[in-house]
């Protein structure tokens, strides 16, 4: 049974050797002539505007956190919606409880001013 996977193992080994070999070979073979353009983070990309560790407003974090929560809500809601008829009223009740808990969080965030941009 395991012998049928032998080609996969060979492929895995070959691709690993190939990938490592290309990196190593280019390290050994290529000439290095550093110029300021080549040393930029994105060679032939945009010219960097400043330090990457710029400070930006904490408000973006609020949006990101809210997004994650509602994103996860969608992840739970869609499978339930697909199987809604088989899950029946019990599934509906469980989903309602889940949404009620989320709504408590939303009301809290709203009241706390987390949804105001200014």
């Amino acid at each position: 049974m395991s012998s049928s996977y032998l080609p996969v193992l060979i492929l895995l080994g070959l691709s690993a050797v190939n990938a490592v070999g290309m990196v190593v070979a280019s390290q050994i073979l290529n000439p290095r002539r550093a110029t300021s353009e080549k040393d930029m983070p994105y060679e032939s990309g945009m010219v960097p505007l400043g330090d990457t560790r710029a400070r930006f407003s904490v408000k973006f974090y609020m949006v990101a956190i809210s997004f994650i929560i509602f994103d996860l809500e969608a992840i739970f809601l869609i499978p339930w919606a697909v199987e809604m008829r088989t899950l029946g009223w019990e599934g509906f009740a469980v989903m309602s409880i889940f949404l009620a808990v989320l709504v408590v969080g939303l009301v809290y965030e709203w009241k706390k001013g987390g949804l105001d941009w200014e």
Partner: protein
Amino acid sequence: MVLDFSSNADYIWALLPEILLAIWAMGVLLAGVFTEDNDSDAPGDATTLGWLSLLGLLVVAAANGWVYGAVEGDGSPMIAMDGFRFFANWLLLAGAALTILLSFPYLTRQRLQIGEFYALVLLATLGMMFMASARNLILLFLAIETMSVAAYVLTAFNRRDRKASEAGLKYFLLGAFSSAFLLYGIALVYGGTGTVNLQEIGEAVARGGAFSPLVLGGMALLAIGFAFKVAAVPFHMWTPDVYEGAPTPATAFMSAAVKAASFIAFVRVFMEAFPALHDTWYPVVWWLAALTMIIPNLIALTQTNVKRMLAYSSVAHGGYLLVALAAANHMAMGALLFYLLIYSIMNIGALAVVMVVANHDEEALDLEDYAGFGWKQPVLATAFTVFLLSLAGFPGTAGFMAKIFILQGAVESQLWTLAIILALVTVLSYYYYLRVAWYMWMRPGSSEERHVRVWAPIPMRAGIVGVAALLIFLGIFPGGLLDGALDAVQGLAAGVPAAELVSGLPDSP
């Protein structure tokens, strides 16, 4: 009412205390944010929401008692319905209630967000209650995370305080690290036995999966994860910094309820899933217990900061509790619950007096600041002396009886060396506990005005004095509570091979 968990509705009855607590916590959160005045700079009033939270805890405790008394059934593969769970729930609720009762002035003075603080305490308690009831490693892990995340936030709750932020970050990083150990342990145990249910793991292990390297590795990682959570030496490094840096009410809550919940989960996992491997994990717990008793007690001797001294004392008390786990018999399990309850209330009481002396701030925590406190505030100082004596295990206090019961459990399993270490370090610990009392009563204060006016409102004062009175009462009449605890742990240690206990365990690994 008999529950067989044939329908999902049975879970509503079995989890009634937890459900009520979850609803109440959300209610407190919303009540807090709706009564909050964003425009004014005046400190909020902590008492209204505090009483609301206390009422909730009382309702939950009553529901817990009702389920304990009126509902029968063996529990389901997910949750246990045994006395261990319900006794532990009461213990954790008592810890949360005392924390809330004693935090009114602190929250007001430090201008902390009151609704959030109480909601987090209640939600952490919810996680702890699930830790006490979980019979499934995945549910257990979720419960531990519910508790831990709330505890991280409580540690860093005072965002204006740099030390609290540092403590919060430290706690978060190390806590996440220990959670990873736990999770990896759960994965290995699942790999070795094919189940995450504690009882089924126990059966699989007893059938002879004992020497499977997967199970042993998983058990070792679980032990490390729990040792982090209960702050056993050598996994205790985070404890003093976190306990010292956190706001004092959060310190009280963490050193009492969070620690108790971690111990309860530790005990349930090792008694239900791995009793057959007792002779394998027993040397590990033996060493953890011995180190955790000796090292923090030695370090505490040199502490001059009282809050930090109490942090080391908290670590040391974890060592006494580990003795009970190493002994793993019926008496030791009952003693463990008894000890956890006594330890929780006396530690919260002591930290409440620390709050009063420090004037609900994070300064004035040194021994020198206690000079002259005794004669200026005799009531509070007497209560504090009772807490210190009880923490030290002085005869006549509940702390003494708790240690005696642990010793009794240890002796029943013939752990002579551990029993002797426990007795010796107890004598050693008298020095640093009584030194605080000595400063309080025997040293004159730095000035005449110092300690004349302290801020301890009636509920806080009543809480402190009540706990002190309870400690004295239980020190003289411990029988009723001990019987309750022994009743609650009926059958918990039954899986540990009995033959081993008759012939006696090897006294040292």
